[in-house]
């Protein structure tokens, strides 16, 4: 495939993360020749989704990635791309179950099962799990699609939504550490109406504030006096106290209406890539990029990839590959496989665990088998928070509070069967250091939505191609005619 890469082309994209993939699609869409490369053997970079086995393989690969040692044609002015950057790092895996099944004549085990009243529970073993590897879909960076968010436009206009299935978030909760239990957060009309937790007056006050926020763009004058202050002032002015204040601040200050995109989150980058390919992009995995070639005027003129020179007008790189980027912060992540839902809600739940001592909250995303994240009977739980030390340390308290890990099984807490902790680095790309035709694209962040990334992609696109349409709506396939395969030919041949 190496010989087929066109050079010169309009745009070279190094890395297949979300931002660079969106820009690649948008560029292809307006007819630019795009070459999209990734040194890995999978699409998606830090956003990718894996089956059980491929996750372990990939993380193993990242840890052992060797620096490229072959002699590359490098000029003094060229920028060396740091290929051994590990955006995803510190991966620690732990099993909580035995390799083999407990034998049938283990009476104590059977009594235990009966007393829990779940006589038909499958006892999972390591080998069973690994056999079902393909039924797992683990996201490195799970995200939510807000129905009023930026990403929805992108999905509709690019036609990607035709290939995707969506699942609604069925419940939003906050974890009350003092009571050790989950409290459902009422944030839709139906939730508020049905809630037994809050008084009539509280319902009215809460709905009022929610409605105001939803209508924000249409009635900016209502917010004028609060805009320069903080959220607290706004809440005080609207008499939001106590329970409803907790709900609003901890869990709802995100959004009211969330559409969860779990069924297809693994496909977003792949599908973005597909869209680009349809309109003429060229895709290569397992293709290293060694250097960015800088011309005499300080602008980039191309890259050296697998010792081949590829010329282009613009270059995009993932920020983790940007030689001038520095690590500014990190995300602590954990992925758990559990045997029971934290809520009694069998779909997708978001749980916020607010922190007492001013630290960042921990967000938990629980996915049931109906989201295709795992085989039936199991649950995949994602935990996300800001990195302070390591993922294991940062998430220990919350995991211990909510789950049961270990020998003594608690009756009410879900048991962890397997866990994986890791960190994802967040990079800062210093302004003005890269040539103006080279753009660095950010990787995933702490937030549960895509908005910032879509905006960044749009900004990069508009900087490269001012005045052009960003992902205009794709025509209906029925209205598309291939010029060659004309209808006349069909008529002539009976």
């Amino acid at each position: 495939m190496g010989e087929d890469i066109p050079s010169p082309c309009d745009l070279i994209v190094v890395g297949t993360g979300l931002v660079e993939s969106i820009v690649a699609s948008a560029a292809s869409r307006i007819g630019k020749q795009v070459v999209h490369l990734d040194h890995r053997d999978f699409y998606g970079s830090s956003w990718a989704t894996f089956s059980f086995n491929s996750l372990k393989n990939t993380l193993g690969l990242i840890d052992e990635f060797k620096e490229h040692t072959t002699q590359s044609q490098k000029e003094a002015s060229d920028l060396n791309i740091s290929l051994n950057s590990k955006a995803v790092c510190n991966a620690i895996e732990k099993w909580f179950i035995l390799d083999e099944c407990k034998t049938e004549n283990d009476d104590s085990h059977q009594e235990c099962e009966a007393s829990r009243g779940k006589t038909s529970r499958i006892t999972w073993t390591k080998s069973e799990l690994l056999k079902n590897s393909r039924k797992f879909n683990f996201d490195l960076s799970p995200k939510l699609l807000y129905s009023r968010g930026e990403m929805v436009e992108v999905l509709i206009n690019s036609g990607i939504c035709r290939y995707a299935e969506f699942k609604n978030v069925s419940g939003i909760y906050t974890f009350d550490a003092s009571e050790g239990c989950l409290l459902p957060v009422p944030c839709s009309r139906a939730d508020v109406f049905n809630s037994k937790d809050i008084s009539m007056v509280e319902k009215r006050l809460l709905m009022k504030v929610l409605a105001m926020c939803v209508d924000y763009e249409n009635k900016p004058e209502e917010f004028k006096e609060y805009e320069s202050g903080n959220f607290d002032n706004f809440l005080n002015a609207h008499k939001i106290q106590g329970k409803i204040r907790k709900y609003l601040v901890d869990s709802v200050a995100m959004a009211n209406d969330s559409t969860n995109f779990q069924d297809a989150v693994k496909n977003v980058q792949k599908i973005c890539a597909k869209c680009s390919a349809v309109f003429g992009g060229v895709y290569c995995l397992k293709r290293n990029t060694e250097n960015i070639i800088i011309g005499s005027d300080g602008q980039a003129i191309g890259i050296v990839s697998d010792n081949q020179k590829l010329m282009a007008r613009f270059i995009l790189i993932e920020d983790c590959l940007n030689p001038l980027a520095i690590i500014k912060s990190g995300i602590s992540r954990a992925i758990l496989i559990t045997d029971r839902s934290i809520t009694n809600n069998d779909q997708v739940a978001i749980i916020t665990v607010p922190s007492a001592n001013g630290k960042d909250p921990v967000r938990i995303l629980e996915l049931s088998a109906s989201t295709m994240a795992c085989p039936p009977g199991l649950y995949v739980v994602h935990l996300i928070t800001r990195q302070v030390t390591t993922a294991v340390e940062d998430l220990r308290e919350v995991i211990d509070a909510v789950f049961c890990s270990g020998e003594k099984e608690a009756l009410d807490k879900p048991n962890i069967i397997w866990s994986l902790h890791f960190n994802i680095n967040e990079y800062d790309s210093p302004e003005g250091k890269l040539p103006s035709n080279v753009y660095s694209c950010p990787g995933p962040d702490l937030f549960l939505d895509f908005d910032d990334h879509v905006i960044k992609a749009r900004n990069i696109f508009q900087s490269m191609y001012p005045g052009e349409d960003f992902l205009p709506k794709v025509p209906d396939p029925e209205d598309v005619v291939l010029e060659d395969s004309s209808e006349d030919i069909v008529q002539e041949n009976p």
Partner: protein
Amino acid sequence: MHGRLKVRTTAEQQEIKAKERAKKLAVYKVAMDRIFSKRKSGELDDEILKITGQVLTENPDISTLWNIRKETIVKIKNTFPDLVDNYVSKELTLTEQCIRVNPKSYNSWFHRSWVLDKGSNIDFQAEFLLCDKCLELDERNFHCWDYRRIIVQMSKTPLENELQFSTNKITKNFSNYSSWHYRSELLPRIYPSSSGDTLLDDQKLAEECNLIQNAIFTDPNDQSAWFYQRWLLFTKKESDSKENSKNSGFLSVLNDELESCQQLRDLEPNNKWVILQVCELLRRIDSLGNKKEILQLVSQLTKVDPLRRGYYAYLGSKIEEEKQKKTIPE
């Protein structure tokens, strides 16, 4: 570069559509001619069912064709009563198809209910499933609600089940006249009141009042909630008694409701529904004693909701007239 994409222009699209329409019209004409000629010669048979079926699938709103089918079914019932069930199930299939195409077709729903009557072994489970599905797609489809009432009656389903259904619908979305209305029809039959004053038994009334208050506080702009509350509190049972027994128990209910309405009014001073309800409550508690306050509210209403000032003027004049009368005309 060959194989380039070209997008059809609007003119081309329109031309294609016009051609398709012309084709359809020709087919339709042929079919209708055949149907009417057969009917004229009394051939109400399988073929006429087949052709009317084809036309109705495209356009379910041709009443004449449905009636021809009815004639055919009646004929079969009279001549071959054992075969009727077979034909009934075909009618059910056809009406279901037509309902998918147009869920608001009077003809399809009516034909379906007509046909149910003719069969002897109807699977009501399937009928309820159809209703559930249609209501999920559109919870205000009155055809479907009416149909549901019919099958409830025919299948002698216990009303408690239907009350649960109404509760489920309201839990999902309380902004729905039809669900509340359904509820208002069921409740007096399941929980009739023992006293002469109210429609519902006291405990159930209290529960419903609480339920509807939740709706009102969650969204005071939702009409359906207010109308349900009016029904709960203001509907009088038919009674010949000249004396309006001002049941003290009911009076306290009214006073409680007044209190929470006033609470809501503090939070939403310009909401016409709240003001109107306070008005109506004051009237029923003590029309004469509260007259001054009521009239003040009425004038406030006229300012807050000028579109309906005619109604408020009428309301005002009625209140002026009310003297020592104990019964409130509605």
